[in-house]
């Protein structure tokens, strides 16, 4: 097993983090995550897989600064997170988060405008992001006029346009069909290569993790901890053609071997 333990030198460091949600209306507290440690290298593509409810999204929220840990600490570029999202971090959520009252152009430029950037620079970056994500010709369209995949690309463009140094993706292709997922995966790899950002992808799709990642962290059933980390060994210029590579099957099989027992534990826990 390759280590994910915090080294103190990574671009992102999670140190012995735990998250416990207080029980409501007399119910027991829910120990959702950890203690868990993680160190992400600058510019690496790291994916997290695990059974349902193991705390994958909670881990992403902690790394993003969207929530605070019950114990432990999160560090981004040497700065400890203090209950808010640090500058340089972009998140793409699983659900469509495009604003339906704004056009594609306005959605993509929304964060930049919020940051107080001047109009000419916003227009330049938005135009680039729109063509980059294949949304050219839809700049004036409203999200309701787009397909689910295109709306998700709007959200990706809105995040990437700010040039984040850490991109956190919470099952961004969860609602898409398999073919679209593969193509979106190719686009994501292209964007990752061009931006040079560190990426952390949360996914339940083992093939997606196997195809996209440099390393894959496998989490246990709740409370989630890393039980294995798999180095894929892919070159940076990979694309969806690697699904026909023998190694791709080996990686996916190894992921499933690790996850099968954990998924059964999670299912029996959910039924209990």
């Amino acid at each position, binding site marked *: 097993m390759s280590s994910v333990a915090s080294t103190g030198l990574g671009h992102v460091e999670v140190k012995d983090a735990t998250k416990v949600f207080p029980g409501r209306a007399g119910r027991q507290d829910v120990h959702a995550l950890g203690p868990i440690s993680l160190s992400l290298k600058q510019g690496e593509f790291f994916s997290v897989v695990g059974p349902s409810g193991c705390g994958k999204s909670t881990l992403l929220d902690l790394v*993003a600064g*969207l929530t605070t840990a019950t114990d432990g600490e999160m560090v981004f570029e040497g700065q400890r997170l203090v209950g*808010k*999202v640090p*500058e340089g*971090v*972009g*998140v793409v*959520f699983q*659900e*469509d*988060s495009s*604003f*339906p*009252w704004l056009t594609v152009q306005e959605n993509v430029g*929304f*964060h930049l405008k*919020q940051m107080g950037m001047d109009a000419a620079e916003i227009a330049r970056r938005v135009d680039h992001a729109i063509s980059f994500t294949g949304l050219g010709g839809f700049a004036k369209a*409203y*999200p*309701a*006029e787009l397909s689910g995949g295109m709306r998700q690309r709007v959200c990706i463009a809105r995040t990437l346009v700010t040039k984040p140094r850490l991109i956190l993706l919470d099952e961004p292709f969860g609602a898409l069909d398999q073919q679209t997922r593969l193509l979106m995966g190719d686009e994501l790899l292209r964007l990752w290569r061009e931006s040079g950002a560190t990426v952390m992808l949360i996914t339940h799709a083992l093939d997606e993790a196997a195809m996209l990642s440099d390393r894959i962290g496998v989490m246990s059933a709740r409370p989630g901890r890393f039980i294995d980390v798999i180095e894929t060994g892919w070159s940076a210029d990979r694309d969806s053609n690697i699904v026909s590579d023998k190694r791709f099957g080996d990686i996916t099989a190894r992921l499933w071997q690790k996850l099968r027992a954990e998924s059964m534990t999670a299912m029996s826990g959910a039924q209990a």
Partner: protein
Amino acid sequence: MSKPGQIRLAVVAGVVLFLEFICRMGWVDTISLAPPTKIVASAIELVMSGEIRRDAFLTFSTVAGSIVSAVIVGFLMGLALHRFPLVRRFLDPFLASYYSIPTFVFYPFFIVMFGLNRIPLMAIGFIFAVVAMAINTLSGMQRVPRVWLRTAQMMRMSRIDTIRKVIMPAAAPYLFTGLKLAIVYSFIGVIAGEFILSGAGLGFQIAFSYNSFETAKMYGYLAILLTLVGGLNLYIYGLEKRIYERRGGR
């Protein structure tokens, strides 16, 4: 014109023709109902002579005051109820039973508070409308998808910016419903107040014409009032429809 629009127009024209016919044939008492042509002539006369001007100004300025205050206070109330769940839980039974209270019983109290002027009528319209706006604002806030709030958090937006740029546009359909109800309730409150409690305004003139057996004039006032209120509501409806179309129902 769309098919439903054509049907609507045909039904209205049919009813008007039917009323004209039964009035002209003497099948209904002309004290009770004036023929539509006479109603229109009376409405035109009221407008052209300027007779309606003072009362219309009094009514519409009072209603406008009621709408503006109810929308602002109702919106702030909705925000506060959303922000403080404990207050919301405390007020829940009162809000649920609010419209069972006969609002007009407060008129003497408002006269004591504000004096014998238009403000008590405005207050009647206000208390009639404000809770509808507050409840709809609260409903809108409660239904803002969590992912939009998380997006705002990800963008490091301040609380004020989140309300202004995310929550308010997201809750717009509910705010529009609150606005429409505030308009309707303000008109009902003020006109009904004038009808039974006041010595001026369109509501008073309708009641006065009725008591003086000036049927055509009474219906003339009614026609003008309905045209203006209907026009205002159609305008709001058009705005709302444009928002819905743009959002594709989202």
